[in-house]
């Protein structure tokens, strides 16, 4: 049972780390501010989400810690899109033109 929990936990933590790295790589590979933002939102959404759920599996029976991790998850999911939206809107108002594919 404990081994199963550990295996699930490490699987989630490893995939979360992979997604965070992917988000970072996307920042380098994509051409402009708005497309890079899409890459960053991978780290925001599933990257942090998987890491937090993976951490929750590390605390068998300690419901207080699980509850706190749950709060962190909910707050990230509420605040990160708001922050992204504010950034995108500010960039647009500052005159950033979204990059278009040349045809």
């Amino acid at each position, binding site marked *: 049972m404990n081994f199963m929990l550990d295996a699930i936990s490490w699987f989630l933590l490893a995939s979360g780390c992979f997604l965070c790295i992917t988000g970072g790589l996307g920042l380098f590979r994509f051409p402009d501010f708005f497309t890079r933002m899409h890459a960053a939102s991978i780290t925001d959404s599933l990257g942090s989400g998987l890491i937090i759920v993976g951490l929750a599996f590390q605390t068998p029976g300690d419901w207080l810690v699980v*509850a706190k991790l749950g709060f962190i998850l909910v707050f990230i999911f509420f605040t990160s899109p708001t922050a992204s939206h504010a950034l995108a809107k500010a960039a647009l108002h500052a005159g950033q033109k979204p990059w278009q594919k040349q045809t």
Partner: protein
Amino acid sequence: MRHILFLTAGLAFLWLANSGHYSGLILSLGALSIAFVVFVTIKMKVVDAESQPVRISYRIPLYWLWLSKQIILSNISVVKKIWFSPSSIDPAVARIKTSQTSDLGRVIYANSITLTPGTVTLDVTEDEVEVHVLCRESLSLLQNGVMDQQVKRLES
């Protein structure tokens, strides 16, 4: 009254889940602070259907499940683009009709769009949202209005 009860219950849950110390003194201090916060919010007149959406709170877990599925699916597609074909992206900006009637619905809808990778909300108006998408295909998915309908169902 219903909203005040809902707020009190929410605060009590938050306090109990965060504290971990359940002696008489600490519990009564917690009750005091909750009472004070409720008192202040009533004085500020911010306890209403918008800040305490009782009806939505019952239905939001199901919506979160549905949204998680969308997030996972769009994550996979963006991850594939980053690793294998960064040059295949085709960004576009478009205005999309929304059927949301309340401010809360618009906020949930816009935030859900931003939360799924590959789509970001740039602007929200009365009946439209302006979105930036990484790929034109995801635009047609949004125009189908599936997510719009899901958010709409939250409030019905």
